[in-house]
């Protein structure tokens, strides 16, 4: 095997410590996954795809909706008889998908939200919710989102108009 074809499983293991080959397909992760219904591949199928070690399967995983729908609730890890850290694996796969520009098309709004969130933290040091929603709307053209709930939040004092700027915040 040439270095370029280094096994995907081996690469994942060296980057995250997660050994996908320990999975024996019991399916408890998929049974307990709250997002299973919305996923194209439930967690145990993601594990199986990674075990096959083919470029095609790996690409399917990196293009999948499943990796973006994982909410990191940790139910899978909690119940896995082999204690495989699937949530950590999902973090790695998402970042791979971003780097390789294979983000699932139906998941663009999820990514847009995360990006808008980090933008807010970058510019002010804290989450500035009014700015986050505006940023998200610009990114997604989803102009109607939360139009009904925002005024009530504002009236309850839950949506400050101005951001708080943190001095000495992390630069990134």
């Amino acid at each position, binding site marked *: 095997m040439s270095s370029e074809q280094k096994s995907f499983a081996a690469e994942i293991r060296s980057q995250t410590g997660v050994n996908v080959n320990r999975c024996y397909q019991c399916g408890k992760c998929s049974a307990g996954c*709250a997002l299973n*219904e919305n996923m194209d591949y439930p967690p145990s199928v993601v594990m199986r795809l990674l075990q096959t070690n083919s470029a095609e399967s790996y690409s399917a995983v990196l293009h999948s909706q499943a990796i973006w729908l994982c909410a990191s609730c940790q139910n899978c890890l*909690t119940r896995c008889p082999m204690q495989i850290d699937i949530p950590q694996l999902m973090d790695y796969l998402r970042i791979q998908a*971003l780097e390789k520009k294979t983000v699932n098309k139906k998941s663009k709004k999820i990514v847009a*939200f995360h990006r808008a*969130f980090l933008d807010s*933290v970058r510019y002010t040091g804290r989450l500035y919710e009014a700015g986050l929603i505006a940023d998200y709307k610009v990114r997604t053209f989803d102009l109607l989102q*939360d139009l009904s709930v925002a005024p009530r939040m504002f009236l309850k004092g839950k949506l400050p108009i101005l951001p708080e700027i943190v001095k000495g*915040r992390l630069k990134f």
Partner: protein
Amino acid sequence: MEIGFYPGCSLNGTSLEYAQSTLALAKAFGVTPVEISGWSCCGATAAHNLNHDLALALPARVLALAEQQGLTEIMVPCAACYNRLSVAQHALNNSEQLRSQTSQQLQMPLSGKLRILNVMQVIEKYIADKIPEKVVKPFTRKVACYYGCLLVRPHDVLQFDRLEDPQSMDSLMRQIGATALDWGYKTECCGAGFSVSRTDIVARLSGKIVKDAVERGAEAIIVACPMCQSNLDMRRPHIDRYLNTKITIPVMYITQAIGLAVGLSRKEVGLEKLFVRAPEMEMAE
């Protein structure tokens, strides 16, 4: 008694009643929270989804600031912040290389010895034994205590409560006179950070949670996480549409429930900030 305090972004905005009730409860029991000066966001879901380095550096900055200010113990009411800070400290303590790198990046020392406590741990440690003598309005209601994911998982890191059937909140609610019900969704995911980007998913997941609580006869859902609270409460119109019925059960923070029981006013615990109105829960003795 002083204790470090990391409010986190939610408690400054959408969940300000959680901050209000936590601070009011602390004051009533002689605990003085000292806010970490210059704190910033823990990175939340966004950081660990998009950027591995930020997922560590953002929470590490908070830990380093707390240490720099001489704090040895911090209270972190938001379950998500509590989780991110704990996971970061665990990672830093497991790798000397990671710790020195991060410390260098932040240009601040990091001993990794800070004690990070969630709200139940603070109550158990400093308040719980004084609760019985202070209860003036027992909370004589049936409640479903909802822990969510981030408070108890991953257990290796957090070492807090039981994984599938946690009890800490149930036991505190019993102390103030409530009946804590057995139910099936204590640690099921509410949809968490998908509130804006996939509100449909939040409606389904939170809908199942609310439905089970109601079917078991709960009169209130008690929570300790701003994301859980806002998904079950603020997203109620979406939940109602998903379940095709109108559900009126209120979703209160544990600090609000205990606060009411020990005689704090509805205003002091920020009860009017909830979207689904909480009726009079407390019963005068």
